[in-house]
């Protein structure tokens, strides 16, 4: 019971916020509820295949393959793969974290995993097409050109900012979550 409460405490807090909002402004609370229901539907549509794919990845891709292609010393190949896989992704950013966790567990380097998350967040191809149409080629292409080196630099800085115990912490977390 207690464990369940701890696991769901963040969700319970958000529900409590919703209740407080309902007391203050019923209209806004109803609107929040309908937006939540709408996003839930969207998540239920996109998330299942992502998790099935990460399950398959976890089972089928051997560790040494991941290390060779995206691990330490994978060099440009690893960077390129991280950008490409991230860009081919679908779904919201929070879908990237569980996939990134499996990459990390399988031996991809921290830097490449961060590049993957960065690419997933900003250079997703389907989103780029949308952006190109709505905001024009100058906007979309400039952003793409600035973002790719930006993602790589951010990932490099992020890697530098982590000491060994941070890394160990993350690996432990990730292993627990993808057991």
């Amino acid at each position, binding site marked *: 019971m207690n464990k369940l409460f701890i*696991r*769901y405490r*963040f*969700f319970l807090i*958000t529900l409590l*916020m*919703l209740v407080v*909002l309902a007391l203050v402004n019923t209209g*806004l609370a109803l*609107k*929040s509820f309908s*937006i*939540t*229901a709408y*996003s*839930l539907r969207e998540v239920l549509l*996109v998330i*299942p*295949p*992502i*998790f*099935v*794919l*990460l*399950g*398959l990845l976890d*089972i*089928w891709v051997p560790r040494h393959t991941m290390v060779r292609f995206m691990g330490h010393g994978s060099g440009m190949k690893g960077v390129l793969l991280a950008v490409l896989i991230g860009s081919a992704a679908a*779904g*919201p*950013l*929070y879908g990237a*974290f*569980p996939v990134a966790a499996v990459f990390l567990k399988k031996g991809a380097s921290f830097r490449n995993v961060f590049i993957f998350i*960065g690419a997933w*967040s*900003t250079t997703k191809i389907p*989103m780029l097409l*949308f*952006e190109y*149409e*709505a*905001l024009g080629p100058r906007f979309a292409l*400039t*952003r793409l050109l*600035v*973002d790719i080196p*930006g993602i790589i*630099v*951010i990932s490099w*800085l*992020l890697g530098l900012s*982590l000491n060994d115990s*941070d890394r160990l*912490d*993350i690996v432990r*977390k990730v292993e627990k*979550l*993808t*057991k």
Partner: protein
Amino acid sequence: MTIILYTATVILLAVSLYKDKQKTVKAIKKAWKAFENIMPQFLGVLVLTGIVLSIMNAETISRILGVESGWLGTIGAAVVGSVTLIPGFVAFPTASILLQNGAGYMQIAAFVSTLMMVGVITFPVEIEYFGVKTAVIRNLLAFLFSFLVAVIIGWVHTV
């Protein structure tokens, strides 16, 4: 896009099933376990998204992004982009309308960039995997980087 995702998943699942049934069952079990592990955080993020978007509706966003120009407007736009979670197919047309109504490219670029890279609402999911320190640094770097994106996009639209 969702169709491609499903097609790819079904094909890979079929190949996996053909090659090894037991491994496939194991993969599905892993998928379910991974999903179940993060589900509480996902649920919280969804409710939070609902609350934030009901308060920060299109009108509010337009007001913040449309009125203030210059640096103050850019900072405001970056903050709005950081705390909202809108799918691209809604965000881009909205941004386009704002541009037509006189919003600056620098502000819109800051908004679009932080919207995609910075996730305040999804923070609880991120720390579950990467811990507080990494999540804070990643979001902070992405936030700062978005200003560079904004300046460059603003600049290319003036030349």
